[in-house]
């Protein structure tokens, strides 16, 4: 159960991020999750939205560089070591994590973790075998 994440290149200069978020706002696109990886020159904004096809079209026509990436989204039990267990499973099976970020939709609920790995199918099989709970695009967007 993959989740489609949009990844957008944003120049690292004043106002660029604000411009981008305004574009989404003006078009009624709600970013459910958001993470930014940045260097001194540029940033890569990653986020999950409900209607990703429409979002890509709008972002692209506004002149941005964008792509869709398959990522996995899981819930992590709200107890100490919840995330560590998952990371351990992956590293024991030699699955490298490209990046990972977490977010919480509602107060007090489980943390959601989004991550991208090199071998997404293998990662999914292993985690599923250990009863890790996956979320679909709809589930994330309706949490």
């Amino acid at each position, binding site marked *: 159960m993959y989740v489609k994440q949009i990844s957008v*290149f944003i120049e690292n200069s004043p106002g660029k991020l604000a411009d981008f978020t305004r574009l989404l706002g003006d078009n009624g696109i709600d970013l459910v999750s958001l993470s930014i990886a940045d260097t001194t020159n540029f940033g890569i904004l*990653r986020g999950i939205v409900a209607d990703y096809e429409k979002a890509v079209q709008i972002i692209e026509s506004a*002149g941005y560089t964008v792509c869709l990436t398959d990522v996995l989204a899981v819930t992590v039990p709200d107890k100490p070591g919840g995330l560590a267990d998952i990371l351990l499973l992956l590293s024991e099976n030699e699955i490298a994590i490209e990046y990972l970020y977490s977010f919480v939709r509602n107060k007090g609920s489980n943390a959601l973790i989004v991550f991208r790995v090199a071998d997404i199918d293998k990662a999914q099989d292993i985690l599923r075998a250990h009863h890790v709970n996956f979320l679909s695009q709809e589930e994330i967007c309706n949490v």
Partner: protein
Amino acid sequence: MENIIFNPAAETLSRDEIHEIQSRELRDVTRRVYDNVPFYRKKMDALGVKPEDIKTAEDIKYLPFTEKSDLRDNYPFGLFAAPQEQIVRVHASSGTTGKPTVAGYTQYDLDMWAELMARSLSCAGVNKKSIVHVAYGYGLFTGGLGAHYGAERIGATVIPVSGGNTQRQLMLLKDFGATALACTPSYAMNLADAMEREGMDMSQLKLEAGVFGAEPWSEHMREQLETRLHIKAFDVYGLTEMMGPGVAMDCVERCGLHVWEDHFLPEIIDEDLQPLPRNTEGELVITTLTKQGMPLLRYRTHDLSSLDDRPCACGRTHVRMRRVKARTDDMLIIRGVNVFPSQIEHSLLKIPGIAPQYQIVVDRKGSLDTVEVQVELDRTLIGDTVRDLEALNKRIVGQLASDVLISCQVKLCQPGSLPRSEGKAKRVIDNRK
């Protein structure tokens, strides 16, 4: 594409006939400038050359050169050879520094220009039935009115849109069904970008040919424009000092641009200003043979080219100049290495994930020249990790180091973020001066 020769009598003269015309016209223009332009009289006197010393076209080597700075020094009308009451129009090109370069035309000159631009557009298949969308700027810039009167001379339908307002350009291209587009190559790229953004279907357009000029552009760019706009793209050469567009033009054979030799005498010279033989690269120098308003002797264009007068399969006999890929004064010297912006463009085109839009910023830190090449990304991101983009950055740096022999910083930019002018692309910013 149909091969139409607009003026067969003139365009298929034998080489001997061309030589005879050039000799006669060179004698005539030398006499006219000596008698009417104090600047030339002084220069020729200093060299000890009299008009009667010029007998054949070969004698051009005795005549003085004209530099762009000579036009500036005689700004605005000092080099005009016809009295002001005979000058019916003035054009000017924006100089990179200060005052513009000015040219004056008599009615004879405008008629000649229309004829040569008609020959040029015909090379691109334009005929009476064609609809020519002119998106060159109209005004002091020669592009708009030059293409306009040439197309009218053929009897084509002219759409004088001028530059700017890209949305409106797209609408008119579609609604009026233009078959030929005349503009700068960078503006054509702009239009192609906009069409793709709008999701415009090229089959809605009737475009067959593009006539692009006023700035050097590469073969790669030609391929891009042809596939993106579904056209044949032709290179038209010209400069305000000579007349405007239509001094030389690509034919369907694509083996160089025919220079209209019954009106211009082209030469190639080396760095020591010595004439070079055919098919040898050097600086293009042009003498206007028939112009009345502002004839120029041996004008140094600073464009790099070579000349080839072997027969062309299109049937035209006029000498072909190789496409101008670089200008001697565009050349950057970076830490002692000669760099042409076009080399950087060629190098960038080899790398997927980026667009052929770039800008070079040269600066000096202490005694060291620094170069930053700013490159626009394609609209599809090639990878969404910092590592992916750093690898792309590194690849560009490596490609430039091996192709252009410079070490530089590369900055990745959002698509469309680098300045594009509706006239000419600004590729180089040199902050060292």
